[in-house]
């Protein structure tokens, strides 16, 4: 591999995002470090309020008043998008080289414009295509995302399509400019499980054929397991653990990750009882000084009052914990014999 492809496509460094609210400043992101290489699939996992979507919005330049980027940097192919003439360059990169798909395809599509015209607009604006060129390309894109009868569908309005079809249209729009990075923010959360499987398979297929890098934002560990090579777990505005998917599911280091995996019922589980992480995530109006998980952590001790850095635990895995890899939920067997599933 040459030096260029070794370089991360996207780097996020000590990123801080704050929101002004009536109650005070909400510290949405409190120093997020992230990087993704070409062709890699990274899952950003966390609960609501952990900062997964804010991270995506910051990368896409969608943080707007009352929010602001309060510190840190975002680099695209080594060059800052925030400093110097970065913001100007970023306009050409966002939407073209980096594309975003949202959770709810109904609210992200214009209900008054046909599917074909909406995708065509992207092509005309970013690639300078003529209307006629765009029309042909739209049909190819609809075909590529598995929409049957493209000419008929292109003339339809969003409300005439099912949820799964709409999400396919969003994906077609996102890949219209042949991006290098696709950020998918909960792309299947609003979909039924059989439709979710179709959409995930589509994303995996596109990733392969277009050599895309994908950041998949989700709260569903099952979706992660099916699609991603690497996982970053977020909690209270920070990344608390990152590692290769196989490894992370097999031996999670951070107590939160351990709890998360074992509080998720599995289709093949025979556990009598789920691990229950008591309590709730802290308020980001006044984030704790030390480890944000300390109040809920069963193995917390005095030194957890100071913030643990994200440090390497073993090859390819880092965790922000003073006592990484220690079993935090002793009372429940780590892995029961999985029950067969068809």
């Amino acid at each position: 591999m040459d030096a260029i492809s070794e370089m991360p496509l996207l780097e996020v460094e000590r990123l801080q995002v704050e929101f002004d609210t009536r109650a005070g400043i909400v510290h949405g992101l409190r120093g997020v470090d992230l990087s993704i290489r070409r062709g890699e699939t990274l899952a950003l996992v966390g609960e609501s309020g952990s900062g997964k979507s804010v991270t995506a919005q910051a990368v896409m330049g969608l943080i707007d008043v009352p929010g602001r980027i309060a510190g840190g940097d975002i680099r695209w192919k080594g060059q800052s998008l925030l400093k110097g003439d970065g913001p100007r360059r970023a306009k050409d990169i966002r939407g073209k080289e980096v594309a975003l798909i949202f959770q709810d395809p109904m609210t992200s599509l214009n209900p008054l414009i046909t599917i074909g015209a909406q995708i065509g607009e992207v092509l005309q604006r970013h690639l300078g295509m003529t209307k006629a060129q765009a029309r042909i390309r739209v049909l190819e894109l609809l075909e590529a995302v598995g929409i049957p009868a493209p000419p008929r569908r292109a003339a339809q309005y969003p409300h005439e399509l099912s949820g799964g079809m709409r999400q396919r249209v969003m994906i077609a729009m996102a890949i219209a400019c042949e991006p290098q990075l696709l950020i998918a923010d909960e792309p299947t959360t609003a979909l039924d499980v059989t439709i979710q499987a179709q959409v995930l398979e589509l994303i995996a297929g596109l990733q392969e054929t277009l050599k895309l890098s994908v950041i998949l934002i989700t709260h569903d560990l099952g979706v992660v397991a099916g699609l991603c090579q690497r996982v970053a777990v977020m909690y209270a505005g920070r990344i608390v653990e990152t590692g290769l998917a196989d490894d992370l599911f097999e031996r999670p280091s951070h107590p939160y990750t351990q709890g998360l995996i074992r509080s998720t019922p599995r289709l093949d589980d025979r556990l009598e009882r789920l691990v229950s992480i008591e309590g709730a995530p802290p308020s980001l109006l006044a984030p704790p000084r030390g480890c944000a998980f300390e109040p809920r952590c069963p193995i917390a001790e005095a030194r957890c009052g100071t913030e643990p850095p994200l440090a390497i635990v073993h090859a390819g895995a880092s965790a922000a914990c003073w006592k990484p890899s220690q079993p935090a939920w002793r009372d429940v067997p780590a892995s029961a014999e999985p029950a067969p599933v068809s």
Partner: protein
Amino acid sequence: MSAALSMTTAPATPGLATAADPILSVRGLSVEYEASRPGFWSKPTRVQALRDISFDIRPGETLGLVGESGSGKTTIGRAVLRRIDTSDGRILFKGQDITNVRGEALRKLRRHMQLVFQDPYASLNPRMRVLDIVAEPLIVHGIVRSAEEARDQIGELLRLTGLPRDAHDRFPHAFSGGQRQRIGIARALALKPEFIVADEPVSALDVSVRAQVVNLLQDLQKELGLAYLFIAHDLSVVRHISHRVAILHSGRLVEIADRDTLYENPLHPYTEALLSAVPVPHPRTQRARKRLIYKGDIPDVAHWPTGCHFHARCPHATERCSLQVPPLVRKAPDHQVACWHR
């Protein structure tokens, strides 16, 4: 059709002499809604939301009811609680026919069956104290005259559902999503019901909190001998909590079996597709699973196809499937399936 009816209206558990009498029996239940008019002067069209639904729930048992959006899960829940009228069929609660119970008798009946809602944010009045919220059913049913009178009783309910002792006088906004769902459960338990319909009670909750509520529901069932109709789209949670599972597809039950049979030996092609579409949160296991991804969408409630509603997506479908509705047939003592090919 008459053959189909006679088979489905037979008692659901003739083979099991030891089983207790069902607390709830549903026989041949159908529900129709009035839909929009095609034109101003024309008659409104009728949409058949449920057709010929039959199942039993025994005391102290959880029946998981699974289906995708639009399949009619919530309609079943509302129909058995007598919140909507049925167009055909019978509902028996503890042997008494409640299909057409009205007025005072219905009000009395509702003491015995309660509902837990999906959205803990929308289902609690933000202007009422927790004490008033939980006491409301007691006041409505004339058991106490004021909330204050029930203070001790409600303290006990709050303890039972794992809420802090000082929760009484606080308002819903002071609680997290998981705690709000506990308030909703406490309210449902206030009248000491024997049967609870839980409509997607954990879908709106974050993963780590979901386990708390699932564990609570299981504990309450053991302690109070409750029977649940647990409505959900998440098959992993359903496996964890249910004793028996019913699969609903486009307004018809396609399969009912005890939990392990259904998950390990599903018979209906739709059940197979559904199970294989659920990702297991473990990368190695997930990669090893065979996946059946069927093309096409879930049929729309207003335009249901003739015959088996699944035939358009089913790989085993023959001409018969597109013409005749397969009846729900018993294949084993506790395993019923509606498919011409199984």
